[in-house]
């Protein structure tokens, strides 16, 4: 679509939102060309910065009028290109909508606008003895709207669950511009569940009611250093196998430790081939008992140093290395790909050995950081983008890691989403019929495919997304189990 055709909608947006809230200058537009995943870049046609649900609904209705695709974006920290803009469309940025609308401690809930950061919720309720449980590593930056779109997790999701377990209700703008509410109390289909994790393809969240979690009586954090990943992996399996559910259980390998050390001087034990961070929380007695068990297991698995943090400052010191790990690899490598995959916990040592093999075969370094408790791997594939061919080799390694995950009965994403980056791997996990069925859900919300098109699905199919790619009728439609809208 040429820029000419965007002039009229841009003028309409200016009427709706005011001149300052609509960006059409190419220099400014380009600063929005990517999110946290920088190797996919598209300059948006128009950027709008609305300040209310009504404004978003009005923008979406104008998009419908002109048939313009639209993409929602929060802080732009996503790692799968979920907020990659459309050159022929509108980027709807929620970063100005960051009010905490209400805190209801008695009913353990807070209502916030989508641009509020994940950590800001915790900060607002900390003095009341509560916090917001899901904690992506980017929690001080990433927005709750983005968390809802991606069903974000974090280190503590092993015990407490993902975003979907902590959102009680949503106000959304549907792809045709209506404002509707979805609530976990609604009888009938779990539309709230369908919306969370839909990566912006079912509409835009404009108000989020979150569950507040009571801050635990006791928190103990333990850092165990092992000679290698194998020993660390053993300890993880033994802890979970022993019936203990820690709040978090995280592992980093030598290269990831090196990066974190360079970035934040976290002073992890010298000579560690792997460190395990285990956090236990809950009633004091329970934590004390579990702590004894975990310490014993770590020692039996070969831990050569154990550090214990009982106060927030010591705990922060242990976590600092882990939480900064992604961005910290920037210190030891000019460029990198953050991969996100899942494997069954018991296969961890085997999969890690295979990743190591891949890394050596292709001459590409891989640093491993992962939520060991639920088998969610975050291999960081390092390369020098100035070196010809290195980027392609890194892509190959990165792709093969996902193949490994699928082979071992895992998944191509644990928490970063599919976005644009992993859509091509979807067909390795799902059959065409599976994917078409997912499309039917999408079409029920977004029949014109205007809401974040081009994400999740490998090839556009059904309901108007470049018709004609699929020949014939969808099997579900044919069998009378589903119909087109």
């Amino acid at each position, binding site marked *: 679509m040429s820029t000419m055709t965007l002039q009229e909608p841009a003028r309409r947006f200016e009427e709706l939102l005011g001149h300052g809230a609509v960006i059409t200058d190419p220099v400014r537009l380009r600063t929005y060309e990517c999110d946290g995943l920088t190797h996919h870049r598209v300059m948006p046609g128009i950027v709008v910065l609305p300040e209310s649900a009504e404004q978003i609904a009005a923008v979406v209705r104008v998009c419908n009028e002109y048939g313009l695709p639209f993409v929602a974006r929060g802080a732009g920290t996503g790692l799968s290109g979920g907020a990659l803009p459309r050159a022929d469309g509108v980027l709807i940025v929620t970063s100005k909508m*960051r009010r905490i609308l209400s805190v209801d401690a008695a009913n353990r809930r807070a209502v916030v606008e989508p641009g509020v950061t994940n950590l800001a919720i915790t900060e607002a309720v900390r003095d009341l003895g509560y916090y917001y449980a899901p904690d992506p590593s980017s929690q001080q*930056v990433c927005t709750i709207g983005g968390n809802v779109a991606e069903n974000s997790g974090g280190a503590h999701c092993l015990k407490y669950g993902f975003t979907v377990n902590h959102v009680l209700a949503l106000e959304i703008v549907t792809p045709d511009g209506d404002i509707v509410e979805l609530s976990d109390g609604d009888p009938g289909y779990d539309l709230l569940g369908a919306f969370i994790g839909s990566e912006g393809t079912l509409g835009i969240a404009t108000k989020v009611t979150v569950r507040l979690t009571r801050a635990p009586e006791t928190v103990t954090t333990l850092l165990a250093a092992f000679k290698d990943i194998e020993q660390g992996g053993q300890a993880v399996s033994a802890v979970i196998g022993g019936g203990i559910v820690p709040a978090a259980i995280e592992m980093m390998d030598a290269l990831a430790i090196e990066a974190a050390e360079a970035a934040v001087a976290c002073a992890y034990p010298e000579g560690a081939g792997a460190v395990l961070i285990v956090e236990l929380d809950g009633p004091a007695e329970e934590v004390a008992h579990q702590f004894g068990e975990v310490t014993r297991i770590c020692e039996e698995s070969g831990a050569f140093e154990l550090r214990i943090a009982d106060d927030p400052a010591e705990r922060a010191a242990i976590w600092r290395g882990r939480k900064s790990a992604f961005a910290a690899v*920037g210190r030891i490598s000019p460029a990198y790909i953050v991969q996100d995959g899942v494997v069954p916990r018991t296969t961890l040592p085997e999969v890690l050995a295979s990743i190591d093999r891949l890394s050596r075969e292709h001459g590409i370094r891989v640093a491993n950081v992962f939520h060991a408790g639920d088998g969610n791997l975050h291999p960081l594939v390092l390369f020098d983008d100035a070196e010809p061919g290195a980027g392609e080799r890194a892509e190959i390694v990165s792709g093969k890691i996902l193949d490994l995950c699928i082979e071992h009965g895992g998944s191509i994403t644990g928490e970063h989403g599919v976005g644009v980056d992993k859509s091509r791997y979807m067909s390795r996990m799902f059959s065409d019929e599976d994917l078409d069925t997912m499309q039917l859900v999408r079409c029920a919300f977004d029949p014109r495919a205007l809401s974040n098109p081009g994400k999740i699905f490998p090839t556009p199919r059904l309901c108007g997304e470049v018709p004609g790619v699929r020949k014939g009728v969808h099997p579900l439609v044919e069998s009378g189990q589903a119909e087109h809208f």
Partner: protein
Amino acid sequence: MDLELINDCVHCGFCLPSCPTYVLWGEEMDSPRGRIHLMKQHVEGTPMTPEMAGHFDACLGCMACVTACPSGVRYDRLIEQTRAEVEREHVRKPDDRALRAVVFQLFPYPRRLRAMRLPLRLSGGIRRKIIPRLERINPSLAAMADLAPPVSARVRLPHRVEAKGSRRATVGMLTGCVQGEFFPQVNEATARVLAMEGCDVVIPPSQGCCGALSLHSGQEEQAKRFARRTIATFERAGVDTIVVNAAGCGSTMKDYAEILEGEWARRAGAIRTVDLAEYLAELGPAAERHPLPLTVAYHDACHLAHAQGIRSQPRELLSAIPGLELKEISESAICCGSAGTYNLFQPEAARDLGDRKAERVLATGADLLVSANPGCTMQITAAIRRRGAQEIPVAHTAQVLDASLRGLGRVPTIPA
């Protein structure tokens, strides 16, 4: 502009919530990540449009993003290089040019600044009348009049202050431009505290500006000239350590070796610049601390906390005073909006940030605000004055220590 430094940014966005303009406006172009993206566009051939220059001008240079960045991006270096590029490439509007000329021909020159004290010696009544009028003509001029503190009596510092008791060290002292002219009491207190802690203090007369103001505004050549002169002045004074009580000056002087080239870089490397709080914490207490029954809110100046990493030392020094209770200001890492000349060139944004800071300072309920940078002191004082009702006296860390060491029982504060 150094492409390698630009490419260190991995676009993670961890800097966004630390950036005052992103906090105010929530727009990518006015965040560190967005500005680095703009720098890259420019290096790759996009001309310096007025829009682009505007986003660079809107950066306070507070360096909070440098603290927040996990990838170690040198945004401080990048924005300095970029500001110089803006000055080279961007043609400013005539009124903006005129204002900048006035500021750069005035502030870095203590003698000219002294001459300005007369017209600024306005009583509260005149000030209230004149500011709204100036606001209509030029918001920057109004900001200038609003910020200037009432003038205190001029103080002539001796060229050397002898250590009390046994001498532990000999140090040079920077008097600064704004500090020296608007807050001479702070310099007096600094010299006294150092002497009471066992230092011979050498104070070279007619030191001139250290170059911070120019460097932070892209006036590269003026900055280098001032830096060379400052080095020569202290070399002549025969000291190898310079104690600085103004955060902005200290952070620039610590960078002299990087800003200058060749012989001058070497000479810069031979002199050590330390902040007053940093130096006193390192030296350890010698003199007796007398009680000060006060609750104190400590304000982190960006050029101390972010640019020099000095956060714990002033807090430790203050907390060590018997009877003194220290309060934390929420959002302490966000700039007050002073940022050198920012409040003169970007008065609206500076005002919003000042109001935000004033609200949080007052919320502490403290008896006294401690600020270790003259710019912050003027900015926060002005913001609190605008609010009317409540007021809170302001003092420099040096003045609080001075009061405790001398057993005054109260802190002689900076008049609002």
